[in-house]
């Protein structure tokens, strides 16, 4: 509305053509913009995991009942978690492989806790499209590398749960966990 009638504001332009009203306009719109962003933030953030979901974000697993050669299927963040007690033979098999030849090069040491090489803790989520591989349950197929086998698209994992064959790009994910005692771990 820059018309000559507004002599009152023109007097405040300071000579550079910027009127008092321009300043008020920009200030008001900016303030409203900041306000709008402040309102949008909680509206977006409400979609993040709620407190009760996060409260289940860590879980404790008792290892005492798992015999060598056995594995259990439990849940962590409502996704399957595999805990496997490797036999010396399975450890030897995993160590016999030259890690640098693998698709996702990692050694069994790197995938387990120091001094607890027999405990292999991984997510039970195939890194291809998120299916649950077989091999943790009693009598399930373990695939040609003796670890886990995903029935969806045929990915085979070895005894260190590393991808050896099939479309999956990565090894089964090892979640963050620590030993709380010799026979118990806290995942997450």
């Amino acid at each position: 509305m820059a018309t000559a009638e507004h002599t009152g504001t023109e007097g405040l332009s300071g000579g550079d053509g910027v009127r008092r009203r321009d300043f008020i306009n920009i200030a008001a719109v900016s303030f409203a913009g900041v306000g709008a962003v402040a309102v949008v933030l909680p509206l977006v953030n409400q979609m993040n995991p709620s407190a009760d979901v996060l409260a289940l974000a860590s879980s404790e697993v008792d290892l005492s009942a798992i015999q060598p050669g056995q594995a259990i299927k439990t849940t962590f963040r409502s996704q399957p978690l595999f805990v496997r007690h490797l036999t010396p033979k399975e450890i030897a098999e995993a160590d016999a492989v030259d890690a640098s030849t693998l698709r996702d090069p990692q050694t069994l040491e790197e995938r387990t806790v120091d001094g607890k090489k027999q405990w292999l803790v991984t997510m039970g989520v195939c890194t291809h499209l998120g299916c649950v591989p077989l091999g943790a349950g009693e009598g399930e197929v373990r695939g040609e590398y003796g670890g886990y086998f995903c029935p969806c698209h045929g990915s085979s994992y070895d005894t260190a749960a590393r991808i050896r064959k099939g479309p999956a790009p990565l090894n089964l994910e090892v979640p963050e966990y620590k030993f709380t005692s010799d026979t118990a771990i806290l995942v997450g």
Partner: protein
Amino acid sequence: MSFPWAAHYTPKAPLMKWIDERLPLPRLVYNSIGAGYPVPRNLNYMWNFGVLSGLALVIQIVSGIIMAMHYAANDLVAFGTVEHVMRDVNSGWLIRYAHANGASFFFIVVYLHIFRGLFYGSYKAPREMVWLLGLVIYLLMMATAFMGYVLPWGQMSYWGAKVITGLFGAIPVVGEPIQTWLLGGFAPGNAALNRFFSLHYLLPFVIAGVIILHIWALHIPGSNNPTGVDVKGPQDTVPFHPYYTAKDGFGAGVFLILFSILLFFAPNFLGHPDNYIEANPLSTPAHIVPEWYFWPFYAILRAFTFDFFFVPAKLLGVLAMFAAILLLFFLPWLDNSPVRSGKFRPVFKQFFIVLCIDVLILGWCGGAPATAGYVMISQIAAAYYFAHFLIILPLIAMFEKPLPLPNSITEAVLAKHNLQGEEPAAVPAE
């Protein structure tokens, strides 16, 4: 809007006159889908599918609102309430089957509508905005259908939600936070189910709103027609009502007969038996497939099994899948041929047929297990899909010699009936 010879609304009943003076809603309806909208006289049955899509949306909204009265979006009971609809609610089975198969029929008519536009060049100037809004509707439909499929909380619902939200997880750095944000958890759960229900209820009304814009944009230049030639005068058009309301009415009858056949005799033909097993996060179905209308895109997603420079295969697949749809937004500027209708474009016509076959092959691969053979076929078919739009169409536009166009719609119609030289008035009403 539209043509100067369009009929004007003159309310006869005093009540309509009274309403029209205060709120010209009857006038708006008359000018949009009544005698006030002049339409090319030569539309064939491929022009039925816009109205049929609208009919399908109405079926979905009505059956959906009813189902929401009996359904509970909670992961503990959702599966049970769907079975409650099927077994206990009076006529519940009919309403749920109508909703599930209605989604499929909605996609069938929308795909025919899209391919009609592709063949007859309905995306070209001056109708680019109609095409773009149509694609927005299509994207909204896909989001709505995906979220609706999650609601019964069966095995396919759960694993479908996991795989599709997992697509966002392929994006570097921000992917996993986005996935967690979408789901409200680390895997699909109650939070995801609730928000999907909320949005599944909302989006159809957003679609209805965009449809209004789609029709508004269409009515500025008026409808395209099988010759692709512009309307030249009043002799080229007939009023929408009663001519095309009748023609669309006939199409609607055929549509409803086919719909009823599937609904009453093979209601689970297009569904997947695994979705009658309640969601189980610890056990994956052996063969995860989306609903059939996503198969071509699912095939493109799975076609990428190799890394390219620093981009991992999984991300490539996701980018290609989204690109396959977003590409269509650029179509009006990729195909520069001034001739609209494929009828007069001999080279385009052949490649159009190849594209249709290519999309069918992609669909077939998308529904099949991801074995090496199918993956190789989908790689070739996906490559052709992109080549068609990015290379072949621009080249055809440059080198093709189109057939001679008729001077007008009327001339084309009369030539077809061997009535050249006679006055349009002499054409029998068929």
